[in-house]
């Protein structure tokens, strides 16, 4: 599995954990997790993927990444 497929997979895995907490907790939870644990090149790659449409990303994850990308 190579980037960005692997990163999409990882991001969705995080999304899956937070899903049972409901949308309002899940979106900031996912954003915070990626912010805290992902290296800059991984963030850059997933943001690039997001800019290209974010194919394959779960809705909560897509929303979280969009919020994280804004400075």
């Amino acid at each position, binding site marked *: 599995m*190579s*980037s960005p497929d692997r990163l999409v997979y990882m991001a969705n895995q*995080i999304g*899956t954990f937070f*899903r*049972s*907490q409901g949308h309002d907790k899940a979106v900031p939870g996912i954003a915070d997790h990626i912010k805290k*644990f992902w290296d800059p090149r991984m963030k850059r790659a997933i943001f690039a993927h997001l800019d290209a449409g974010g194919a394959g990303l779960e809705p909560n994850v897509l929303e979280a990444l969009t919020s994280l990308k804004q400075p």
Partner: protein
Amino acid sequence: MSLIEEIDYGTPRSKSETMVTLTIDGNQVTVPEGTSIMRAAMDAGHQIPKLCATDMVDAFGSCRLCVVEIEGRAGTPASCTTPVMPGLVVHTQSERLKKLRKGVMELYISDHPLDCLTCGANGDCELQDMAGAVGLRDVRYGYEGENHVFAKSHGEINAAWMPKDESNPYFTYDPSKCIVCSRCVRACEEVQGTFALTISGRGFDSRVSPGMSESFLGSECVSCGACVQACPTATLTEKSVIEIGQPEHSVVTTCAYCGVGCTFKAEMRGEEVVRMVPYKDGKANRGHSCVKGRFAWGYTNHKERILNPMIRERIEDPWREVSWDEAFSFAADRMRGIQQKYGRDAIGGITSSRCTNEETYLVQKLIRAGFGNNNVDTCARVCHSPTGYGLSQTFGTSAGTQDFDSVEDTDVAMIIGANPASAHPVFASRLKKRLRQGAKLIVLDPRRTEMVESPHVKALHLPLMPGTNVAVVTALAHVIVTEGLVNETFVRERCDWSEFEEWAAFVAQPKHSPEATAILTGVDPNDLREAARIYATGGNGAIYYGLGVTEHSQGSTTVIAIANLAMATGNIGRPGVGVNPLRGQNNVQGSCDMGSFPHELPGYRHISGDAVRDQFEALWNVKLNPEPGLRIPNMFDAAIEGTFMGIYVQGEDILQSDPNTKHVVAALSAMECVIVHDLFLNETANYAHVFLPGSSFLEKDGTFTNAERRIQRVRKVMSPKNGMADWEVTIALAKAMGLEMNYSHPSEIMDEIAALTPTFAGVSYAKLDELGSVQWPCNEKAPEGTPVMHIGGFVRGKGKFIVTEYVATDERTGPRFPLLLTTGRILSQYNVGAQTRRTENVVWHAEDRLEIHPHDAELRGVRDGDWVRLQSRAGETTLRAEITDRVSPGVVYTTFHHPDTQANVITTEYSDWATNCPEYKVTAVQISPSNGPSDWQKSYDEQARHSRRIAPAEAAE
């Protein structure tokens, strides 16, 4: 320096708080109720002669040497079996006692060889000491009678004589020297809990018998050494003592194998280790040991150990031995070159859980301050990183909550995904002791483990399907909530109530019930309900867990689920309870504490925190990068992508230990500089450009932190055979890269750690020397450390309940791969086996075997011992099958100690959602008969052999 002599009080310490005063030999002595007269006398400095008593086991009263006189009582009671009472007046020496003792010794010696001068125990023999103590001068019976001493008597074969048993590689059993005191038998029962030894026969025919009169090696003996330690004569003696002689000085140090962290005395002659003896004052092991720590240290002298630095241009070249300076400048040039070419973030390093805190701290410092990025990770990534995440989310700090002594107050022990009898044997022995006293045991494991099969232990075993931990633990919570077993007082007082309510509503849903989840977990709902009831209502409930919890796609979720369970039942914050991760390696806890993770500085503080960074920047005099770095699996991905090209690996064999070997090979092959710092040319070194020889735990000073957060000293007992301790190697590499580090001793590194880390603020070598060890947090609030955490409140404030939804792993069985493979460790071997494979421990486990259920084996035409091909989506390997019902149908199991097995060729790159901890414990596989090693194994072996060539030194001119 001299030999540390530990006082043998004869009988165990009494825990009573009621004190009793009596008179012994005219002195008033005050001791706890329940103490024996023998121990009370020793407390007062009067040693009563004894042979069958020793303070590691209960009194037995068989030798009759310890007799005393008590005023107002008839006869001469044995002081070991007679408890103290208020006002007793005891005499330990009188004419009558002298005569009795001399008579006893005379009988003993009449059936004992008189070869003291050439005996292995010469200088360390209690029988000899006692003969001296009672003034034995003559044996009136002679030596002609019936005896166990001579092979022939009166020209005839002596049927009572037995030859030496030398089957165990580490100690001998010489029955001719046995006095049948049964200390070995009792040590095996009471201390180790294996029950391998017994006394067969009666009277004169009594013999110590391993199993059913088998050899030691052929019996159930696990070679822990407790019997050898207990033996008062030369009957059970370390072969190293027989070979070398008695030690002349000893140094207290810490074992470098598992996370129990046993304290040992390294007994020495000059710089040669004579033997390692567990230290009674060691607070983790309390005088006990296992086969690894006690005996398997010979790897330090193994011929394959590399003692000179080596470099090579390309991994296809043979190694070239060079000077340290040349190796450092070669490595530094390459690493700096990579940074110039690919950017500052293109290099990184891995710290080792086998190395000391000080060494680990220096490696992360080199990376953060010297490399200028945060690409530092540690082997804890692949074992307990989910523990770090899960426990810090719920409790506020990522460490086990108890000390090991806590188990003595436990009423219900729940073990999840761990097999302490094999992987944490000394803790297992302490637990088994408690279980024999009546505590209950629940085991959640796909396999009927050695722990479940322990003698005199009744376990409620829930054999779950691999990968269903979250479903099972959530079902336990379901029962606790729906049957009204929640400790509401505790939850209201200590935890966030609204989060609890949310969680309780979640777990109470019918879909989380044991009945609803049984179809996927395979666990009998009645057993599961019973386990939940026992844990919630059985008194002090303690959870111990291992890598069977963490190494899953939902590893972090299970850790959270476990924490929820402990909070809901109020099993946190006092002795006997808690959540206890059993750490795999000696310093997993320490390497995590020392800031080895890419996102956090020492003391678990996130790198993005300005205040924390400021503190480190001021002391280190550099600017730190506020962004987290790459984790190990991310490093591999980035290497294949071409953005991560150089790595410094200290003391970890990532190629053998990380999942999906082919992926790791591709990553390592892509890198332009791989620096391996290790004792041996390990598997990773096959892809390395620089090899820096490492030093063993016997050759350096430092500290390890065990699974109970206990910081313990590692003390140098010999000069580093490679010339430099590992911390010195890192300092020199840093210097070559332009980062000055000025430390003349590891104690100075610890001082820096203490200055920068609040939980370590009170730690210093002086304090460790004074107290023996401390458990962090150790600071102003807790100057002597913290044995039990979260007393009165959680570190984070209120305990946090988090919902844990079960999500099936994407690694699924199907028509092509219908079986689930899970992995584990065996007692005699340790992890990748780099150390233990280079000791005599191979007699117990020379190869990895595949455990398979008879049904699955029959279906595939596999017989016991057959070679089988083990195939997964990721790769295939071959090994031999062992047919057993320890595993359920549909599940197969193997260990991963041998590089030729290549168990990780099979495992996949799936990982924990939160931490990327690999999912080692679940792989869908297929098994088929095979003729021998796979093509991959053959080509791997060829590459390894090719890669390990060392060029002959050039002739001097």
